[in-house]
């Protein structure tokens, strides 16, 4: 079966759990976005606010030790632009391809997608500073490279 790419303007959501977020000091791991085949969710099919329940049900394993801490979002055009800018400076090549990856835990199944392949650590370090981080109280945060800071 051929791969179906998500729409060009779609918004993507990434769960940020204990393993990639050092909550006590607010550090985010670049490996959050490195893959291989980074799991994301699609706001076109699932509202952002519904992702708290979805991620707790589908990715919070082990249940009491891998906790969903924040939710990160980015839209595909922005993701492509950051990658292209990075490639231009570093003489590297990232072919950003986001494909629908049906998952039975997602409702609907097609709400799940993957950023295919691996992203370099250099690009991942840039990406984590461009994501918008959402806490459950609906506050928005940015990552300054050291910690999450509240968006004004």
């Amino acid at each position, binding site marked *: 079966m051929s791969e179906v790419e998500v729409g060009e303007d779609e918004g993507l959501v990434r769960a940020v*759990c204990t*393993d990639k977020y050092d909550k006590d*000091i607010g550090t985010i*791991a*670049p490996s959050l976005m490195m893959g*291989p085949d980074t799991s994301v969710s699609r706001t076109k099919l699932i509202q952002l606010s519904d992702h708290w329940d979805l991620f707790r049900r589908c990715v919070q394993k082990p249940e009491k*030790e*891998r906790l969903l801490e924040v939710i990160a979002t980015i839209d595909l055009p922005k993701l492509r632009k950051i990658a292209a800018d990075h490639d231009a400076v570093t003489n590297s090549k990232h072919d950003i391809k986001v494909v629908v990856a049906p998952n039975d835990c997602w409702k609907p199944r097609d709400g799940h997608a993957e950023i295919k392949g691996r992203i*370099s650590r250099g690009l991942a370090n840039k990406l984590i500073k461009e994501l918008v981080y959402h806490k459950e109280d609906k506050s928005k945060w940015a990552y300054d490279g050291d910690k999450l800071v509240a968006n004004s």
Partner: protein
Amino acid sequence: MSIKFPFADPRVYSLDDDLRSNIDQGMWSSTLSADEQDLLIKKLGDRGWGRMLLFTKYYTTGWGEGNKQISPRGQAVMLRFLEHVTFREGANPSIFLTDEGELELAWSDAEGSPIQLVFGPNGVEVYHEAAHREEVLAPNQYSRLATEFSNV
């Protein structure tokens, strides 16, 4: 005639009852000896030690969305690195677990530029943004790495 040494029991760390009750006893036991836990506390502080305990005790194969258990070889190399390295004062490194089961050590240099060392089964991924350095070294290079990144 036998002599009794005036030592108490060997150092043994124990988990809180509520954490202990979450362990699937048939799946995994910590591979961290008391000496190794001492080393983690000394080099990564209580926070890093606690996160390592979580990763080694609870993140069994398939954690999250089917991710890999911690790499024993990666863990061994990171512990050797920690034996040799002296972090600069205030470095406050964070430890993360990648989806591939690698241990990701992250901190910033004195100028705030990110440094990341990723310890996996096949080598150590080295990233230092300010030095434009992104490469993979053989696991036996831990001593050299420790010298290079001490007090940085």
